[in-house]
């Protein structure tokens, strides 16, 4: 049942938006094509803006792998990652996600490249990164803009939300994709 609902969402959401948004825009008399071109140009800029973070993270992870340090860390953390049901390569996603969105994207991309996008590790890394936010960055921007320096429960709530997102990602990926 749950699988059927989630599969339907994965299958239908993007096609429905691809057809629905331009149709809605036509009805609202929006100039669809110029608007699309204008937005698409930003997509190009976004991809270019990701390059520096991707270079930094890919190079660091490649050095850790080539030196043997990554294998040693994976062996040392083996009991922990096995208990959590997380492949060792995915663990850094959870550790870095609340701190840096760019670095987390780089780690996900590296997992997708080395383990494969359709592997359990690749799918889990994708769901983890997609279902959480860069908590520390969001708090710094929002609280800072209002001149608030005492965050009260906001930090705890944000980090608990990340934790819940990761736990749910592991549970739903194990249910749907095995592993």
């Amino acid at each position: 049942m749950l699988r059927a609902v989630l599969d339907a969402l994965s299958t239908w959401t993007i096609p429905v938006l691809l057809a629905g948004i331009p149709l809605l825009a036509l009805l609202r008399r929006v100039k669809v094509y110029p608007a699309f071109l204008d937005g698409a140009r930003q997509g190009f800029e976004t991809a270019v803006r990701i390059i520096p973070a991707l270079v930094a993270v890919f190079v660091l992870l490649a050095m850790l792998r080539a030196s043997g340090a990554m294998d040693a860390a994976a062996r040392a953390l083996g009991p922990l990652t096995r208990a959590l049901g997380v492949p060792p390569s995915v663990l850094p996603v959870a550790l870095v996600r609340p701190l840096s969105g760019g670095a987390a994207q780089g780690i996900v991309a590296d997992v997708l490249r080395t383990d494969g996008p359709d592997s359990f590790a690749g799918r889990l890394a994708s769901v983890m990164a997609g279902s959480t936010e860069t908590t520390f960055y969001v708090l710094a921007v929002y609280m800072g803009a209002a001149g608030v320096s005492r965050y009260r429960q906001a930090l705890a709530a944000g980090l608990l939300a990340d934790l819940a997102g990761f736990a749910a990602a592991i549970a739903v990926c194990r249910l749907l994709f095995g592993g």
Partner: protein
Amino acid sequence: MGVILAVLSALAVAVAAASGRLPELTAAALDAAGKAAAFSLGLVGVLALWMGLLRVAEEAGLVRAIARLAAPLLRRLFPGVPDDHPAMGAIVMNVSANVLGLGNAATPFGVRAMQELEALNPLPGTATDAQAMLCALNTASVQLVPATVIALRAAAGSRAPAEILGPTLLASLCGVVVAVVSAHLLGRLFPAARAG
């Protein structure tokens, strides 16, 4: 991040030097830099398509449509904010833009909402429950389509880049529920009054 990068890079070099793998490390580092740039170029197509579509959605008034649907629910999450206060309007637009994944559009609304809420704050400088709730909503992911992750998967050659959409939505929902509930319940553990 800078400290982490520097320490881990030094660690990798030290381990490689100790095990005689420095040439492999150098080759791997240079190869990875090239791979990173090539990978990023693989993102251009999907991100351009998606952001183009989102701009069309924005101009068609989809953010406002979502805002109308979300407003009654959001008002219940912010009991201390009057319905007709400008903060409420900014909160609703902030969350609605985030649902569509319009981060660039969501942030200015969020910043304005935080500033309007600060005007209602009896203890300026200490977050109100409403400010904590808005931040909690923004530190959880409410977006419908995780477009960047899907682009990364497409660039990596996935057979089904979008197959993680449903599972991601479910995991996001768990995160949002925990964010809202903990922002609500933990307020009492972090009393504003005691803050000087």
